[in-house]
């Protein structure tokens, strides 16, 4: 039926004014006249306009002479019908009708230790793959990085191809990107680039997928593009834009709130953390117990390593209940130790009903503004003995919403709030997410 329709159009096509092909060079694949990566009806319309035209004199029809016989005729039409709704890796005038390969790159959000916990293994959606903000982020991996949880700075990318065993290569936009076939960079597993392009990737004859591990090995931040294309041409089959992280986001749960996969929906701090992870931030989530009363511990060590060894210069910290107290303690230690860390800013902090965390039995309000924070968001409610053991945060001078934060009990949605649910209000979480977006670069 489709062929019939094409023939019908072809029968009336001669004599139409040819006008569709811009430029002289055939820069797109055979039959992909509009260069959208697919061969479809829109290409046929352009082709039909050229049928019967002289490609030697009508320059805009040059690429419609698929087989290069100096005529746009039924032989070209035959090639077109073969390629219709397929892809080609060839260019006019050298089209043979060979079906090209397809490829799909899928990038994942950053690893944590020997896997992804406390996050799910999260694929970057197709529509965000080339978004320089929301797309895949990648930690700089530089000499001296302590890798406190082991090597986990490489980004997992899967490459699916059709037909199996397709001969494809990678191109990178800059040398910062290095590609490995092992997540821990085992010796002999790096895929070499020559002039920023690889040889054919190591697909076996029947293999349709491989996993690659991408490293950002430069100390210069920015973005870089990784493209998959045929070995002999520059036809883009798929591409991903990586942004190198310059910030770090720390989410600290309340006392007794442990991270889990899947996340407990009643652990609002971690729900926010996962939301920010999904939009391209380097998020780290912890039980607040990892922050000692003097700010020391795993969370501090991770931030210090990132500042000293991975060019991170912006830090965001937020926490609920005792996690609020730990937010203060962590910010305080970072501020006290600035001279030995390097230049960085605590660009964002947030308490949700912050409770001081001098100890596991500290029930005091955390109302101190985290030292040197550029922006502080504060949510609090009022505790009572039999509702929530008098646990509550309180107003924090010079925080947001101005002047001292939001008493959620003054809002219609939070009027009856207790300490145990204040972190779960969508209004609280949404304001945290939007203010992180507004104050923290990735």
């Amino acid at each position, binding site marked *: 039926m489709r062929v019939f329709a094409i023939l019908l159009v072809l029968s009336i096509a001669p004599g139409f004014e040819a006008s569709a092909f811009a430029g002289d060079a055939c820069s797109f694949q055979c039959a992909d006249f509009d260069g959208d990566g697919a061969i479809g009806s829109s290409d046929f319309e352009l082709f039909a306009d050229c049928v019967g035209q002289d490609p030697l004199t009508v320059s805009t029809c040059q690429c419609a002479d698929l087989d290069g016989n100096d005529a746009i005729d039924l032989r070209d039409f035959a090639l077109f019908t073969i390629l219709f709704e397929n892809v080609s890796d060839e260019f006019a005038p050298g089209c043979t009708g060979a079906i090209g390969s397809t490829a799909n790159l899928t990038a994942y959000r950053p690893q944590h230790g020997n896997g992804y916990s406390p996050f799910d293994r999260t694929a970057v959606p197709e529509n965000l793959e080339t978004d320089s903000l929301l797309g895949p982020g990648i930690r700089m991996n530089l000499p001296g990085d302590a890798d406190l949880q082991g090597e986990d700075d490489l980004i997992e990318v899967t490459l699916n191809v059709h037909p199996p065993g397709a001969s494809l290569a990678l191109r990178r936009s800059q040398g910062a990107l290095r590609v490995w076939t092992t997540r821990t960079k085992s010796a002999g597993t790096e895929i070499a680039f020559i002039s920023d392009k690889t040889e054919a990737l190591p697909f076996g004859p029947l293999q349709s997928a491989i996993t690659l591990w991408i490293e950002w090995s430069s100390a210069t931040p920015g973005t870089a593009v990784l493209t998959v294309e045929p070995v002999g041409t520059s036809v883009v089959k798929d591409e991903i834009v990586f942004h190198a992280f310059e910030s770090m986001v720390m989410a600290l749960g*309340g*006392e*007794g*709130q*442990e991270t889990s996969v899947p996340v407990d929906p009643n652990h609002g701090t971690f729900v926010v953390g996962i939301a920010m992870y999904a939009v391209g931030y380097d998020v780290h989530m912890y039980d607040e*117990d990892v922050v*000692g*009363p*003097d*700010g*020391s511990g795993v969370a501090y060590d991770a931030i210090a390593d990132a500042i*000293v060894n991975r060019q991170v210069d912006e830090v965001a910290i937020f926490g*609920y*209940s*005792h996690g609020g107290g730990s937010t203060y*303690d962590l910010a*305080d*230690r970072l*501020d*006290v*130790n600035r*001279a*030995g*860390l390097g230049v960085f800013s605590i660009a964002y902090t947030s308490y949700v009903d912050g409770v001081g965390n*001098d*100890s*596991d*039995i*500290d*029930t005091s309000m955390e109302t101190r503004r985290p030292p040197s924070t550029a922006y502080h968001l504060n949510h609090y409610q009022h505790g009572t*003995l*039999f*509702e*929530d*053991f*008098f*646990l509550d945060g309180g107003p924090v001078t010079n925080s947001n919403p101005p002047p001292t934060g939001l008493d959620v009990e003054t809002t219609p949605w939070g009027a009856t709030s207790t*300490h*145990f649910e204040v972190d779960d209000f969508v209004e609280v979480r949404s304001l945290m997410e939007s203010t992180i977006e507004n104050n923290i670069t990735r």
Partner: protein
Amino acid sequence: MKSIAGINHCFRFDPAVVLCLTMAMVVSSARAADRNSKQPLVANEQMQRIFTELVNANDQVERERIWNQLQQFDRSDRQGLIQQLALFAGDAKGVKASMIPGAVIGQFKMTEGEVIHALIPLLETENERLVKQTKGMLAEFEDQTASRPPDFSIYREIITAELREGREAPTGLVKHMYDVSPGTALLTMMRASQMRDPEKLREILWAEHVVSESDWKRTHGFIARDAVETQVEQQLRQMANHQYWWARFYVVATMKSEPLLKSPELLDMLSSDSNTVVASEALRLRQ
């Protein structure tokens, strides 16, 4: 005798005889073993059940009823209540359950001394979660901040009293102090042990000063983050050969706190120390 006093206490404050008899039994069973010994802390099922009921209570009336029960326990056996709270929180999930000890201790106006004395024995149990919880509760009295060393003065008084009585310093407490801050712990033990010879005092003071100053230089960028100064190694070697076990333990605790300073040679030597605390910790760190 104490359990009988507990019954009298009940009758004085609560006419509910059944509850009082139950509580008297609780007090009696909880005291069957000496809580200051190294015996593992046994869960008091009734107290644990009441804590759980408090977490799960759905309305204010129910919570108030349970709270009153807790007050009765507190009046009859405050130390036991504190220890059972630690046991409960050690296994607690979620904010509500985890914050009950703080709420009870705060609202019942328990003193620093009462809480610390109840918790110290728990540092020597083999229940790791309970030990972690206990350390987390003790932090309330240590004034830890990023800008200055912690304050162990209340521990020093306790240890001094024990030593004056000719008893050993509570091992769990000593290990806890060294976990939190090896340098402050060393100085605390030095004072608690009533040393009087200025030469001996200066030897310890200087060792602590050299090691902590080097850490300060590393932290603030005066030397490389991975630099190990020769004088630090010298002082650690000197302390590793000190006559007092708590000075030798300082070496192990310092290497645990700052892995850069680990010396396989010193750890080997300390692994066969005559003091079992020193030897076992050195062996663990060496592995």
